[in-house]
């Protein structure tokens, strides 16, 4: 503290009253900070109430014996030692990873087109976002109409064209669920990537081309690196959505559940193994939170660069 009077131009500008000395300016800054913190308070409170506290309760319950109430890590040991649980967790991760990669790759050209052609964007965006507005149950039913073995559009067309001799029974297996997830995920990816690509100045691409780069090289050297934050954000969102998805796996589940949420729901609702289900839910939440936190870390590092 040098004792020199400091003037906060921004606060002066906002209030319209010139600061008389450093104390007033500090007081004003403190008030502003308090104001913004108060504004954030409702959202923080709701998050604390509906997310943090229930999750904390889940963790506590998952560490207590369902019958005696004694502290025990046994539900975590049982879950991670159960071959069916770990196998289903791995198929869930594989599903989420695959859906994320495919939907980002499929959505990128569409997003690029919409970012560069504003008129096309006006027409395409509402059409593309329709699936996002549909409940997952409806998406699941749409998949039945598309993929049903005998009456589904896809099978009928392929059989009529002679490309298939017998219909594919993929609807109630993992491919049916993967298609349903990808259908929803492409929309998320297209929405996020379009926003990011709009902010990439097209003149940068033109500059690269004028310096001798091909269109493809300018895409990989200029556009792709600049849109990486969007790719990271979209990937994290899609991955966590798929890992925790419940409606589509239930609608399109055959005999064997491929998604972990179905296993947890069975333990919780049917088998009444509530504390075991809590432990499994905590493990899945850790996975989802870990991916989100990792994405945030990557984004902040990318931002610093």
């Amino acid at each position: 503290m040098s004792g020199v009077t400091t003037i906060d131009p921004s606060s002066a500008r906002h209030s319209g009253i010139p600061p008389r000395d450093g104390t007033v300016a500090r007081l004003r800054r403190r008030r502003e900070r308090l104001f913004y913190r108060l504004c954030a308070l409702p959202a923080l409170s709701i998050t604390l109430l509906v997310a943090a506290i229930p999750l904390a309760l889940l963790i506590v319950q998952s560490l207590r014996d369902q019958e005696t109430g004694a502290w025990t890590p046994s539900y975590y040991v049982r879950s991670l030692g159960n071959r069916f649980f770990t196998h289903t967790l791995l198929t869930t991760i594989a599903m989420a990873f695959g859906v994320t990669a495919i939907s980002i790759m499929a959505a990128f050209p569409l997003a690029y087109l919409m970012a560069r052609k504003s008129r096309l964007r006006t027409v395409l965006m509402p059409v593309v976002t329709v699936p996002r507005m549909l409940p997952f149950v409806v998406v699941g039913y749409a998949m039945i109409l598309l993929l049903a073995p005998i009456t589904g559009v896809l099978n009928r067309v392929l059989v009529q064209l002679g490309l298939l001799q017998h219909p594919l029974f993929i609807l109630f297996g993992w491919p049916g669920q993967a298609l349903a997830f990808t259908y929803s995920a492409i929309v998320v990816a297209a929405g996020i990537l379009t926003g990011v690509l709009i902010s990439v100045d097209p003149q940068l691409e033109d500059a690269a081309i004028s310096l001798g780069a091909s269109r493809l090289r300018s895409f990989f050297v200029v556009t792709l690196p600049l849109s990486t934050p969007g790719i990271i954000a979209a990937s994290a969102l899609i991955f966590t959505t798929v890992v925790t998805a419940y409606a589509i796996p239930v609608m399109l589940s055959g005999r064997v559940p491929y998604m972990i949420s179905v296993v947890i729901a069975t333990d919780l609702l049917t088998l009444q193994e509530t504390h075991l289900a809590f432990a499994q839910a905590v493990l899945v939440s850790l996975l989802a939170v870990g991916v989100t936190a990792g994405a945030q870390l990557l984004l902040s590092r990318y931002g610093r660069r």
Partner: protein
Amino acid sequence: MKLTRRAVAQGALGSLTSLGLSSWSGSSRAAMPSAKVLPHLVAYTGTGLQTDLADKLVEPFAQHMKTKYGVPVHVQTVVGQSPNSWVAFQTEWPNPSGDVYQLYNEYIRQGIPKRYWLRLQDACTPEEWATFNKSALVTMATDGYTAPLSISAYVLVVQDSLKDLVTSWADLGNPKFKNRITFDSALSVGSGYDAIAAAALVRGADWTKWFAHGKFDASAARPTFEEVARWAKNALTLTQGSGSISPLLRRGEALISAWWWQNGLQEKLAGTPVHIVYPKEGVLAAVDTGPVVSSKTKNPVAALEWVKFFHSATASKIADQLHEFNLMPREGEPAPPQWDEFTKNAHIVWINQFREWTLGPDYNRQVLALYNDVVIQGA
């Protein structure tokens, strides 16, 4: 058992006396209590047939009571699953909010020693009581507190294109029908347990030996569950109740679905080209009880009249109009042709006890755990 019965009758008598009722006994003549008829009655009506029927009976019942007692009693129906009504009743006891309850047989039996109910048989003449199906009364074992109302029969609903090709429960595992059969998962709905009983029937397994003193003998039951697992591997999907069976049959995706007889008939009436197959090993059936009257009702005359009205010819006619063909006709009452066809062709195997054990609190989790291990996880 006799002591219990007497105690219950005395309990009912006591509660009615406390309400200022003068006549209530198990004499040879029907003895309706002579309390004042109040204009309002609350009936917990369950779901499905029972609630549909109850809603349709509200108006005619008001007319009936006006003619008989000069009071047009309005019945307020409360829809909800039987387990929920049972929990509500026990929580609210001794001041339950309902006068009449639609409950599962086992709940009624659990309530008898606790003096929860008024005895229906005492409000009927012996001649009236004799018109109820005797074997159904024995199967229900509710000791005269309720009468049989309907039957839940589990059959195979088969596309007409497979006429005469499907005859047995074992066809659910027939590789000729790979990916074209469905049946409910026990992890999702109660009807899923019937598939286990069907597999036991196919294997000739004695399921009564699986249950003893709260312990479920998983090793004895395992071969039957493995049979269900084989069927599950042959299935297009394991369904989650009627809502998921019907579309698959209508679209022709499923050729064979294990389903309720009643739902199969309604599917036929809706125009789906299906027929009912009564498997040669037997049709699995459970008797559904009619409503029961709370012993704490303030309106016992109207409550007992409501229950009797539920079992009346008027109710049967309305059930026919609703295409609810699984209502059990009383002796001397005309039955719809669907019922006659059913009784002529179906060899009935009663599974009330099996359902009560598998769905009851003593064994349910153990049964489901084995189902999850063997049928779902394939362990």
